[in-house]
Structure formats: structure tokens, C-alpha cells
């Protein structure tokens, strides 16, 4: 029997309830904010290119059953330390691209060591991974502050004296990367290209790949077919925006939106990595451990090792994510930039429809879009609705914390419920 349309619709609604709720809230908040679509889009694209990589770094621990990895803040600290080192030696070849690459390279061993240590700790706190990963983040932050406030300049010498406080010990509160590393990943902004051009290229690639598949396998799944249709639509729409004037001004303005192409490429590569890793033996181990540690152990999988690997990968990716994030902003708040990174990334992932036990690339990307739309417009909405932008700001913090709390609570409730059965 074929499922009816209504029952299918119901299923779809239930499955995507979180996303739907946030789409509605975002749209309402956007309307209330009285901001232009162009403003929203330009802000949003910036934030997508900055934040997506960090959010995507959360996926593997979820797969390995370790829940939401609040300890990515430790990876972020490794990233910042790497950037500080690169800035110290003022390495900035290829318009800063070389410097960023070097920072990413330096970050790897640091993040790997931190990741292994974190993983070992989380193996000692099984069942309480999330609270432990949060507290270990706070703890590491204390050590980070100790190093960069009291040890640097004293125990470690610093070549670039501009980094230091006037006393000669400890780093300044904010470090600017202008002219050296800012936008280094996109060669100082050289590869920042019109957004709709990127869309066109991407949709052409998707169409070609699927067509190629069709010629090899002689058939396509529904998903692949709809992929072709959607890509074609995007292609046409983008072309119309770029090369014609048929749309109203509000939409025509979008033509000048830009997107950093190399950052985008990095995000796409990470999405690809997340997809490919599932298909490897390691990915299978992640899944097995994630589903049932006991059975995985009985079949000879070294559960603790697999968990450490998962956290280590996540930590390294978070370090890169933080480097991408900071080089786009161009300024690092030495003791503040990383603090909220875990909360916001986790919140974004959950808004995108992920749960404690299941998270996909789509969840991450959709989540970043929705969460940051809300982030951009809510102060304006607060001002328009209540005459106070602060209300909007508090609202978005509430959303960030609330969605995490609610998601964790519902998951715990569900687990308890199924265990009782």
C-alpha cells in the first residue's frame, strides 16, 4: 500500500519539526526587523563562510556516540595559538595564504595532542561526556589564559613586540591581522567572487556529475533526479540575476553579493570528508561504537581508541575552523574569541535538526543559515517590536542556550523512555 500524501506530509513535518519552527521564527523576525534582503544576505553569507567549518567539526563525535563535543573550544584555542605563532614571526607570503596554511599546519600537532588528552578524559567520564567536555573546555581556557597572560613574554620570548602588553609580559587583548593574514585563505580577498557565480558553477557541476552517473548506471534515484531539477532552477535564477534586470530592485541588488571561494571550497571539502569517512572501516567503527559500546567491544573493536580518534579529529578540525573564522574577521580577541564558539556551533547544529545521536552535513549547513539569520535580525526585531535592541540580543542568547537545553532534555527523556520499555 502506498502511503497517503497526508501521512507522508505528517511524517515530514514531525521529522523536521525543529527546522520548520526555526524557519518560521526566522522569517517572522526578519519581517519584524524591517531590514533589507540584501543586508540580511550579505551578513549571512559572511557568517556562513566563517562558521560552517566549526559546526561541521562537530559531526564525527556525534557519530561515535559521544554527543555534542563542547570541547571544540580546545581546538579553537590550538588554532588561535597557531595564529599567534604565525603572527609573531610575521609570515605572510602569497597574500597571507601561505601564513594561513602554515597556521593550519602548526595547529595540527597541538590540536592532536589536546584531542588525545581530551579523549582520554572523556573515556573516564563515560555517560557524562557532554558536561565533561564543557568543563574541560573551561579548564583548558584557564590554562590558555595562564600561558598567554603570564608565560608569554616571560617564559617564552616574543619577537613581535606589538603583540605584547606594555609591561612586556602577556599578550594584548586584541590582535589585528590586517595586511598580513586577514582574508589570507582567500588571498587577501582576491578570490572573493560574486556569490551567484559560485552558485552557477556549483549547480553546473552537480548537473554534470548526475548526468555522468546516468550514462554509467542508466538510472537515477528520485533524490538524484530532484537534485538535477533544483540545480537547474538555481542555475537559471542565478543567471537571471547576474545578467538581466527583470527582478525588482530588492532582489536585483543581490547581484553584488560576494562569497570567499576558497573558504567555500574548504567547507565543501569538509562536507565531503564527513561523507567519505562513513564509508571507511574507521567510519564503520565510529558507528558501531556510537550505537553500542558493549557489542563493539565484544567484537574486538578497541572502543576507547576509536573514541579518542573521533575527538582528536574533531579537535583538529575545530582548530582549522577557528583559523578560518578569525582570518575572515581579521581581528582576534585573544581571550574572548574562542569562549562562546562551542555554544554557538552546537546551537546552530541543533537548530538545523540534528540530535545528540544523529547529525549530518545538511543539519550543519541548514543550522548555520537559520541560527545566524536569527542572530542577525533579532536585535533589529527587538528594537522594532519592543523599542530595545537588547531584548533581541538576549533573545538570541536564550535561543542558543534554550535549544541546547531542550534538545539535550528531550534526548535524555527519550533514552529513559526507551530503556524503560
Amino acid at each position, binding site marked *: 500500500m502506498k502511503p497517503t500524501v497526508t501521512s507522508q506530509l505528517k511524517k515530514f513535518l514531525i521529522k523536521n519539526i525543529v527546522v520548520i519552527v526555526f524557519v518560521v521564527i526566522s522569517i517572522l523576525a526578519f519581517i519584524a526587523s524591517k531590514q533589507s534582503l540584501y543586508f540580511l544576505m550579505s551578513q549571512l553569507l559572511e557568517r556562513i563562510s566563517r562558521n560552517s567549518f566549526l559546526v561541521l567539526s562537530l559531526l564525527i563525535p556525534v557519530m561515535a556516540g559521544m554527543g555534542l563535543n563542547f570541547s571544540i573550544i580546545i581546538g579553537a584555542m590550538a588554532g588561535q595559538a597557531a595564529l599567534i605563532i604565525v603572527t609573531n614571526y610575521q609570515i605572510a607570503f602569497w597574500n597571507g595564504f601561505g601564513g594561513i596554511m602554515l597556521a593550519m599546519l602548526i595547529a595540527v600537532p597541538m590540536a592532536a595532542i589536546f584531542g588525545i588528552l581530551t579523549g582520554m578524559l572523556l573515556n573516564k567520564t563515560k555517560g557524562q561526556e557532554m558536561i565533561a567536555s564543557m568543563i574541560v573546555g573551561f579548564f583548558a581556557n584557564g590554562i590558555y589564559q595562564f600561558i598567554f597572560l603570564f608565560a608569554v613574554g616571560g617564559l617564552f620570548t616574543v619577537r613581535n613586540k606589538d603583540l605584547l602588553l606594555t609591561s612586556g609580559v602577556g599578550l594584548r587583548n586584541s590582535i589585528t591581522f590586517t595586511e598580513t593574514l586577514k582574508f589570507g585563505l582567500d588571498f587577501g580577498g582576491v578570490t572573493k567572487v560574486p556569490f551567484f557565480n559560485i552558485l552557477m558553477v556549483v549547480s553546473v557541476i552537480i548537473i554534470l556529475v548526475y548526468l555522468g552517473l546516468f550514462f554509467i548506471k542508466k538510472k537515477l534515484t528520485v533524490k538524484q533526479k530532484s537534485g538535477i531539477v533544483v540545480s537547474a532552477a538555481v542555475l537559471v535564477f542565478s543567471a537571471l540575476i547576474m545578467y538581466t534586470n527583470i527582478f525588482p530592485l530588492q532582489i536585483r541588488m543581490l547581484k553584488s553579493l560576494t562569497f570567499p571561494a576558497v573558504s567555500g571550497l574548504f567547507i565543501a571539502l569538509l562536507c565531503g570528508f564527513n561523507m567519505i569517512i562513513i564509508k*571507511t*572501516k574507521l567510519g*564503520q*567503527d565510529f558507528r558501531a561504537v556510537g550505537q553500542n559500546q558493549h557489542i563493539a567491544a565484544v567484537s574486538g573493536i578497541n572502543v576507547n581508541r576509536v573514541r579518542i580518534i573521533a575527538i582528536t579529529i574533531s579537535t583538529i578540525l575545530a582548530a582549522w575552523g577557528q583559523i578560518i573564522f578569525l582570518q575572515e574577521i581579521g581581528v582576534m580577541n585573544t581571550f574572548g574569541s574562542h569562549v562562546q564558539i562551542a555554544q554557538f556551533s552546537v546551537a546552530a547544529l541543533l537548530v538545523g535538526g540534528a540530535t545528540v545521536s544523529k547529525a549530518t552535513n545538511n543539519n550543519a549547513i541548514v543550522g548555520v543559515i537559520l541560527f545566524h539569520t536569527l542572530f542577525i535580525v533579532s536585535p533589529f526585531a527587538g528594537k522594532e517590536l519592543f523599542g530595545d535592541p537588547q531584548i533581541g540580543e538576549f533573545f538570541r542568547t536564550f535561543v542558543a542556550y534554550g535549544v541546547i537545553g531542550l534538545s539535550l532534555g528531550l534526548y535524555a527523556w527519550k533514552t529513559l523512555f526507551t530503556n524503560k520499555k
Partner: protein
Amino acid sequence: MKNDYVLEMNGITKDYSGNVVLNNINLKVKPGEIHALLGENGAGKSTLMNILFGMPVIHSTGGFNGEVKLNGEVVNIISPKEAMGHGIGMVHQEFMLIPGFTITENIKLNREITRRNIVSSVFRSKALEFLDSEAMSKDSRKALDTLNIGIDENAYVSSLPVGYMQLVEIAREIDKRNIKLLVFDEPTAVLTESEAENLIGAMKVIAGHGIAILFITHRLDEVMMAADTVTVLRDGNLVVSKPKTETNVMEIAALMVGRELSITKTVKTEEKEADVVMSLRNLQVNMPGEAVKGVDLDIKRGEIIGIGGLAGQGKIGIANGIMGMFETDGEITINNEKLVLNNTIESYNKKLAFVSEDRKGVGLLLDSSIEDNIAITAIRVNGDFLKKFGPFSFRDDSKIRNHAESMVKELDIRCTGTKQETRRLSGGNQQKVCLARALTIEPEILLVSEPTRGVDIGAKQLILDKLRFLNKELGMTIIMTSSELAELRSICDRIVIVCEGKVEGVLKPDASDVDFGLMMSGDYKKVKVGGIA
């Protein structure tokens, strides 16, 4: 040199800190043979298997004596992984399957077939190789076909009926190419009758491929159906090992149970003609692992009634259900009044008291003092040991102390004082504290479960004497649940044997070993009615 036996275990002896659990056991299994291993709980079956699989628990307790030979060669297996390497496989009682994985993924769990790729070649890492799902599906299909299972190898395990899950486990074992010996640990415990028949069919198919099977079970009819050879263990000793054709159900049943009673039996002279103090009607208790599935029973005033049976059959669940510890259904009448179910405090109000089978998990507050442990339930249930100040009531330290001291004396609890934490006490003394706590409520009916498990012989005698005393002198009705049949036979007026969640029968303590054995294995009705011996 070709060897006759795939597995030989010679002169296996094992003790846990002086307590001998296996005594000079010899076991020989031929290729292609289905070898049934029988015994009550605690007979030594699981220890023997732990030795075979090189479980850490064996090595951490000083190893064992004797030798294990595989295909005639002496081996020293020190880990389950090594056992696997030698071609020994296990089909677990509780399924070792991941529900969110497909059948193929489960069959190939941690034995995945992989293909190399650029990255994996560069890093020389098997972990980074791609899964070859086609090859894996093919293998699983072959294993499933061997067992004549028609299900799709790419179906999710969570969507399978229970009976198939067992078969998937077997498929996983036979997919291991070198498999020589397969151990089935109570495989039919969770299966329906037809599923069990399927399974036995599958076992015969496997044996037909030359793989030896060790079949651990308590169901004698299945033994008769499947096995070629039967070995019976009792109290760590080998009782018998012979071809099935040379024995019958009655003999095996008697061999499993029969033993010299270690505790002197009191002679029960007169038949008690008393009224019914408690009756159970269609009692169902949803206790994991010990489910009760419809028990009818009348308990007479002033009797000691024993509840026996094998582990997992539901005997433990009855007392827990009466006390409202697990979700319960049915009807319980006490002194002609209906008991409100699933409400522990109601059970106490009906003058019941309970000594749990799980002494450390349920019976004690391990970090609290002896006196607090003894007093707390009475404080909760009867409001004893309290001083009132207006609307508030506080604990009365001296009353609690005095009572605890008298209990310590009465039950001979060996301790440094009533303030000692119960965690520091020996098993026997802990059990006495549990008993003291129950008696402090001054019950009419006492439910005791496994009162002598893990208790030294001196304390055992004292506890049993105390129960007898309570029954005789104070007229207390006692419902005693125990895995030790001998113990039940030594003090009970009647013994109820529970099998598969139901009452299999009620016996006098002096009934024959054969009857006890048949009832415990659930074959009593079949044998007596159908006569399939």
C-alpha cells in the same frame, strides 16, 4: 596427524580463592558433533566456558589447572580474541547485534572487507580503506543460505523478529572461515517453540558441515532432539558423559539435581491444615530477566513455602512483584483483602517484609551504618524510632542504637559496632543486617530471596535456623526463594518449582530427584503426560 577430537579439556580444576568451582573435569568434543552440556546454576558450566574462551576473570583469579587441547594440540588461550583466532565461536544468550545496523553489517562487524584507496595506501592504514559492501553482502548471503534463511541480507536487524536475530548471530559465526567449534549458550531461552525448532534445525545443518557444537541448555527435550552426546555437571564435578542413545530424560533429570543434603533436614511430621494467608492469581511481573507470566498460588498461614527453579525462569520475580518492585499485574489477596499492586508501601501495610535477592544493590545502604540500615524501613513504614517536636519528627538516636544492638546480639552480626558502615561487613553479616531490617518491621509474612547466596557456611546455618525459629515459635509465614534446592528441601513445608514464568508444580521436600529435575527443566508435564522418555 589427524586427531579424533576438535576439543579436549583434560583435568580442569578451578577455584576462586579456595572455593572449588570445577573439579577435574574432562570434556571431549568430536568434529560435527552436537554435545550438550547440562547442569543447574552454579554447576560450573559458565566457568568452564570462561576457561575455554580465556576470559580475563579466569586469569585475574589465578588461572586454572589442567590442559585444553584443540585438534590434539595443547593451547593456552589467554583472551577471547585468541579463542576466536583458534576458531572457537560463541552464540550469546543476549544478542550481540547492533539494531541500527543491517544484517550484513552485523555479520561483518569488525571483520569488514575493505578496498584500498590512495589515502589509505599513503598512510598504510587499514582503518582508512573503503568498505566493500558488495563483497560483504555476498558473504552474508552465503552464510544465510547455509542456514536456509530467506531474509534480505541488507535488512536492518531492528526490523527482525527475535528468532531471526539468533540465526543472524549464528550466520556471523559460520561466516568466520576457520570456525571449528561453536558454543551455544542457552540459545533457546528467549525463543518460541517453533523458533527453537528452527534453531535446532540450523544447528544440525552446521554440524553437518563438520563444525562441532557445544550446546548449553536446561531444556531436556531439546537435548533429546539435538544432541549426540550428553555431559552433566553438578557442583563442579563431572557426573556423567555419554552418548544420548544410552540415556533418557528421567536419568538426566535425576543426575542434574541429585545430591547429598549438606544441611540436616528437619522431619516434618504433621501436615499443616491452615487457612490461606495469601493467594496469587494470574500474577505477572515485568522483571527483566526474571519475568513472571501468570502464577497462581495459595500460601497457607504459618508455613514455610519454598520457591525454586533455574535462573531466569521467574522465581525471583514473584517476591519482587508482591512487593511492588517491578510492574505487576494480576491479583494478590492477603488475609482476604486485595492488595493494591505496584505500591511498596501498601505491601508493607499488609504486614509483609522483604529481604531482597540483590543484597548490595537493593538490600543495603552500603555507605550508611548498621543501625541506620536496620532502622530506616521501620521509620518509613511504621514511623518507629522517632521523636516528635510539634509538627516535626526527628530520629531518636538512642532508640535506634538500642534496637540495633539487640539485633546485633540476636543475629550474631560480627561488627566493630552498630556505627560501622555495612560496606565493610562480610557477605554473611550483611545478609544478617538485611534480615534484621525486615524483622524490625515486625511482619506477619516474610519474603526472603536467596538468603544464603554468597554467605559462609556458619552464617548460612544461623540464618536458616533463625527462619525456622521465626516460623515455629512466632508463627511467621515465610516465602523463601532460593536457587539452592537442597536448602529449600531442608526447611520448607512445600516447594513450588517455577519454570518459564509459571508454576511447573508443587512438591514435598522429600519428593524424588527425578521429579525435581524434570520440573526444573520444564519437562515434568511433558514426561508425565506425554511420556516422551
